[in-house]
């Protein structure tokens, strides 16, 4: 049986404070993805969404699947959404499995966020517990002023810095590379040049992470179509060659066994266990950069370098630049192109593999792309291969 594949992709308008209805953004990306795949909406028989409609944090979720189904008058065999999955890409991984199982032919997958507008309306940010008190694992975190994922991530970054001697100057290369690439992407939200001095002078958020180590909330929606590779019509199929979604440690920010890596350690290992390809086959990598340190952890988890060596691996930025051996964040990543919960990175991988990157296109046409999303106890990754 043919592998599952991405056969079309679409993006809505993406930006800061668009003040647009999240449903309108979602329909924009979904109709573009369906058209991009050469399909009609009657062809769609499955929908997967990350995260679907959720209460908190405000603006993090988009419309629920039933609203999208009704707006497009879809006739569905299957649908799935939610946060309780293997990283943000979890619903898309589920879609690939649904296609493989034969219960669906064409799954519309979308991720919508309107955090930028929602935060403007609410004039506040950070994770808030629903109700007065913190519950679950957050009951053991929020009372200590660890309000934000920035704090939880900073604890890992400091542990990693202490263990391996990594410096802020090295970490800076993630933000600087993303910004340099964003300058060549007309849809990126922050395109002005960023220098190392500018990075180092930025406001500290939670040591050792400063402003440019944190991604930027935006409004936007991404959609892709997942089908069997032999069902591709307009676009060359991007076969899902391998999936990594293992979680072998304790699923906890505080209690994960190694505070110098995260759940991506296990997801990355599984990706190669399930593939005949190897890290040196990857032509372009879109690794999650919700916080810059996540990218270092992903580089190590995916075997691009050894544990503790990611700082040296990216030190002068040349290796990970657009013309380097392993181009990263080619569209600007989440740091400069906006927090689209991994789906912006997925979209960019598709663009690169289809050769549509314009000024930011990796010159030697990429054949194999890696997409990885997640941080903390939350990770999933995909290896895409152009048919």
């Amino acid at each position: 049986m043919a592998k599952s594949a991405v056969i079309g992709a679409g993006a809505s308008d993406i930006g800061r404070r668009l003040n647009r209805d999240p449903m309108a953004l979602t329909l924009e990306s979904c109709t573009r993805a369906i058209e991009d795949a050469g399909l009609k909406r009657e062809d769609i028989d499955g929908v997967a969404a990350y995260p679907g409609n959720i209460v908190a944090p405000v603006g993090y979720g988009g419309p629920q699947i039933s609203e999208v189904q009704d707006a497009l008058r879809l006739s569905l065999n299957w649908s799935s959404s939610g946060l309780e999955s293997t990283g943000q890409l979890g619903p898309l991984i589920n879609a690939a499995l649904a296609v493989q199982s034969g219960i669906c032919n064409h799954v519309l997958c979308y991720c919508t966020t309107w955090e930028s507008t929602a935060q403007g309306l609410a004039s506040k940010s950070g994770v808030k517990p629903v109700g007065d008190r913190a519950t679950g694992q957050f009951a053991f975190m929020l009372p200590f002023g660890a309000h934000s994922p920035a704090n939880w991530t900073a604890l890992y970054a400091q542990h990693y810095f202490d263990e391996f001697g990594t410096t802020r100057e090295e970490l800076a290369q993630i933000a600087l590379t993303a910004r340099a690439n964003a300058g060549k992407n007309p849809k990126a939200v922050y395109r002005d040049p960023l220098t190392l001095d500018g990075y180092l002078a930025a406001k500290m958020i939670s040591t050792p992470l400063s402003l440019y180590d944190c991604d930027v909330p935006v409004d936007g929606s991404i959609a892709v179509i997942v089908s069997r590779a032999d069902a591709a019509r307009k676009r060359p199929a991007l076969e899902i060659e391998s999936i990594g979604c293992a979680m072998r440690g304790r699923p906890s920010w505080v209690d994960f066994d190694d505070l110098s890596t995260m759940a991506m350690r296990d997801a990355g290992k599984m990706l190669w266990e399930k593939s005949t390809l190897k890290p040196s086959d990857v032509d372009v990598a879109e690794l999650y950069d919700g916080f810059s340190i996540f990218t270092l952890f992903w580089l190590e988890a995916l075997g691009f370098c050894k544990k503790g060596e990611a700082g040296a691996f990216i030190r002068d930025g040349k290796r990970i630049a657009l013309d380097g051996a392993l181009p990263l964040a080619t569209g600007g990543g989440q740091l400069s192109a906006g927090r689209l919960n991994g789906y912006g990175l997925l979209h960019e991988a598709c663009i690169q593999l289809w050769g549509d990157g314009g000024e930011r296109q990796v010159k030697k046409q990429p054949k194999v792309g890696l997409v990885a999303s997640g941080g903390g106890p939350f990770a999933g990754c995909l290896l895409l291969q152009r048919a």
Partner: protein
Amino acid sequence: MGMRILPEVTPATASFWRSGADGKLRILKCADCAQFVHPPAPSCPFCMAGKLSPEVVSGRAKVITFTLNHQRWSPLDDAKVPYAIAVVELDEQKDLRLMTNIVGCAPENVRTGMTVRVTFEKADDVYLPMFEPC
């Protein structure tokens, strides 16, 4: 610190959050395999057999990582920044960890590896375990 978000107190977690009333820290311990278990769980994840009961611990710990938070996350937040958030490992058992604040010293002086001891901050109906240099 300013206005804190307090933890929900459940039957499972009450012994932990109310422990500080007498100045002592208590962690659930398994009657069979003698392992400490935290966060509170309904059964011992080590042996899946023993009954868990709160046991007084020394309150001594080591900072295994920390961060100085400089950001105000809400207009309602009147905390003095920066403040030190840490993960400490209790002396009693490897990987027996708490997230906490390091108090009783300038935040800039907090270091990985420093030894600390528990001190409690009462807030409404809970006693939050904080740690200070010892």
